[in-house]
C-alpha cells in the first residue's frame, strides 16, 4: 500500500530528511516550502495525503488546512512543533485528521502516515455490510459515500470511518481508546481529543442540530454510541 504524499514544511533539513524517510518507506513525496506553494501543489497534484507543518511562512498551516478542507476530504496529518496543546485542538478543528509531534522518529511518522491512509472499506470492508443506515443517513460502505435523503454529505476518511465504526453496532458504547485504536490505529494511549474533535465535526455534518445530537450520542464517562433504530422511531 503506497501513496503520494505532499509534505509542506519550511525547514529544509526536516523537509529533506522526511522526504528520504518516506521514500525509503515506499511513498512518493512532493514538497512545498510554504503555505501558498503547498496549496498550489495540492491543487496540481491531488496527493493521497498531506503532511502539514503548522507554522509556515506566507500562509499559516491552519489556513492551508481549512482551504484544503473546503475542497477536499484528503487526509491531513499536522506536524506540530508547538508545545502549546491548544494548537493541536485548533488544527483538528480546522479539519486535520491526526498529528505528529516534533521531534519525531522516522518510524513514528511513517506509522502515522500509514494509519491515515489505511482506512476501513479501502481494503474491501472486511466484515462490514455493503450498506448501513443511521436514521435518515444512508452509508454506502463499499463506495465510501454518505447521503441524507439522497443528498451526498462530504466526509473525510476519518469522519467516515468513525461513522461506520459507530453505526455498524448501534447502541453499543465505544470508549475513546477503542475508537483511537480502530479508527486512528493507536493501539496504546492516543490523544482522546482526536476523537472528541472528530465527533464534533461529524455531528456538524450529519446531525440536524449538532448542539442536540440525536444520532451520535455521548455516554458520560464512557464514550460514544450510535443511536439504536428503535430509539429513533420512539
Amino acid at each position, binding site marked *: 500500500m503506497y501513496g503520494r504524499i505532499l509534505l509542506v514544511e519550511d*525547514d529544509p*533539513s*526536516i523537509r529533506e*530528511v*522526511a522526504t*528520504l*524517510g518516506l521514500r*525509503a518507506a515506499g511513498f512518493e513525496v512532493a514538497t512545498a516550502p510554504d503555505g501558498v506553494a503547498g496549496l498550489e501543489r495540492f491543487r496540481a497534484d491531488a496527493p493521497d495525503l498531506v503532511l502539514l507543518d503548522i507554522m509556515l511562512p506566507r500562509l499559516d498551516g491552519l489556513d492551508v488546512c481549512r482551504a484544503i478542507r473546503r475542497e477536499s476530504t484528503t487526509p491531513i496529518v499536522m506536524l506540530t*512543533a*508547538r*508545545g*502549546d*496543546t491548544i494548537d493541536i485542538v485548533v488544527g483538528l478543528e480546522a479539519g486535520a485528521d491526526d498529528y505528529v509531534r*516534533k*521531534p*519525531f*522518529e*522516522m*518510524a513514528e*511518522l511513517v506509522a502515522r502516515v500509514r494509519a491515515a491512509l489505511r482506512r476501513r472499506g479501502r481494503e474491501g470492508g472486511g466484515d462490514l455490510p455493503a450498506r448501513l443506515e443511521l436514521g435518515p443517513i444512508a452509508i454506502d460502505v463499499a463506495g465510501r459515500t454518505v447521503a441524507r435523503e439522497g443528498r451526498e454529505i462530504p466526509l473525510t476518511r476519518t469522519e467516515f470511518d468513525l461513522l461506520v465504526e459507530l453505526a455498524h*453496532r448501534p447502541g*453499543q*458504547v*465505544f*470508549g*475513546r*481508546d*477503542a475508537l483511537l*485504536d*480502530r479508527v486512528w490505529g493507536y*493501539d*496504546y*494511549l492516543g*490523544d*482522546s481529543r482526536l476523537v472528541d474533535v472528530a465527533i464534533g465535526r461529524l455531528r456538524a455534518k450529519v446531525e440536524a442540530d449538532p448542539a442536540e445530537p440525536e444520532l451520535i450520542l455521548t*455516554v458520560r*464517562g*464512557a*464514550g460514544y454510541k450510535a443511536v439504536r433504530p428503535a430509539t429513533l422511531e420512539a
Partner: protein
Amino acid sequence: MGGIRTRLALAIVGLVAVTVLAIGVGTYVFVDARLRDGLLGDATRRAQFNLSILVPGVLPAGANASTFAATGLPAAFRLRGDVEEIVEFGDGKPYYSDADLSGALDALPAELKAVVSGGHLGYAWQTLAGRPGLIVAGRAASGPAIYFVFSADSIEAALAQLRLGLAVAALVALLLAIGTAGLVARGILLPVRSGSAAAARIAAGDLSARVLGGGTDEFARWAAEFNRMADSLESTVGRLAASESQNRRFVADVAHELRTPLTALVGEASLIEAGLDDLSPDARRAAELLVADIRRLRTLVEDLMELSRFDAHAEEAERRPVDLGRVVTAAVAARLPEAVASLPAEPVIVDSDVLRLDRIVGNLLDNARTHAPGSAVEVAVAHQGETVTITVADRGPGVAPEILEHLFDRFFKADPSRRSGSSGLGLAIAAEHAALLGGTLVARPRSGGGLELVLTLPVTRSLPDGDPGDTFGGEDASTRDATPATAHPRQPE
C-alpha cells in the same frame, strides 16, 4: 491594642470630668459671690438709710417693743422692699416684726452683736426661723440696735437652680465624653490597626498591602515609612519574580528553538540507524553513538519543554475513569517488561488523567531501569480507604537518607559521576504530574535495600466491577475480543 484603647478612652473621660468639675465649681463660686454681693450692697444701703435718716427723726426716746410699731417705722422700712426687723431696746424685751422670728435675737452671732453695740454697721448670713437670710444691723444715734433681716431665698433658689443645671450639664458632658472617647481612641488608633492589618497581609504574602491615611501627624509619617518599606519589598520581590520568570521563559524559548533542528536530527538519526549495516566498523560505532546521543538530546529537550509548560501553568488534567492496573501493565510492557507487577484482585478505578499516569509510572520505571540496572523491580497497586498507591520498588544501590528529598529536584543526580541516559528531569516531571492530579510522590528506602517510589492518589471515583463500558478505554465485550491486549493480566501476589 485593646489595652491602649481602653487607657486612652479613660484618660479622655478623666480629663473631661476634671474640666467639667473645675468649670462647674468656678461658675458656682463666682455666681454665689456675685449674688451675695448684690444683696449685701442693697441691704447695706437700705439699712444705712433707715438707721441714719428714718429712725432718728421718728423714734422717740424711751420707746420700747410695745410702742415701736406705733411709730410707723416698720411700715416705712417696707416701703423700699420686703424686710423684717428685730429691735433690741436693751430692756430684754426685743421687738420682732414677725412672730416667726421670736427669740431669734439669741441665735444671732455674738460677733455681730459686739460690732453693733460698738456703734458700727455689721452683717451676717444666717438662717433664721428656717429661712436663709442676711442680717444687717446697726444702731441709730443712742437708739436701740436694729437688726434688719433680708430674705436670701431668691439667692438660694437661684443657686439651687444653678447647682441643678451644672450637675445636669456635667452629667451630659461626662456621658458624651465616655461615648466619644471610645470613638476618638478608635480613630486615633485606626492607623495603627490599619498598619497592623497591612503588616499581617504582607506577612501572609500579599505584597500589595498598604496603610491608608494622609495627614501630617505621627501616624501619617509612620504610615508613609511603612508604605515605603512595602513598596521597596514589592519591587524587589517583583524584580526577582520577573527575572525568574524571564529565566524560565528563556528555558522554554531555548527548548522550543531547539525543536526544529532537533526534529531534523532525530529524523536523520533514524535514517542513519536504518543504514548502519552499510557502514565500516569504526563509522558504524560512531553512528551508533550519534544515534544514542541524539535520543538523549531529544529526551532532554522534551523534558525541558514539559517542565516549561508546568512553569507556565499551561497544564490541565483531563479526568476520566482510569483503571490503574491497566496503566501499570501497559507501562511495564512498554518500558520495563522484566519488572513484576502485582495488582489487587479487584480493578482499582479512579477519576484521573490516563496520559499523565502513564507518564508518571513510565518515569518511575525509567528511573529504576537507569539507577538500579539489572535489579529486580516490583510495581504494586494498592487501595487503602480514600487513597490508592502505585509503588515502584527496586533492589538497586538505594539513596542516602539525606538526599532522598532532593530526588525530585530538577537535574538532580544522586551520583554526578555516573553517566546515564536520563535527563535528570524525569522524577521532577513525575512529581509535577502527581501534584496536578492531586496526589503526592515520595521516595523512601526499601527495607532490605533499594529504593521505593510511591505515588499516592486520592480516590475521587470508584466504580463497581462489572461496568466495563465505563472505564478507561471504555471497551465492551466485543471490543475486548478485538483487542486482547487490554485485558487485565494478573500477577500472583
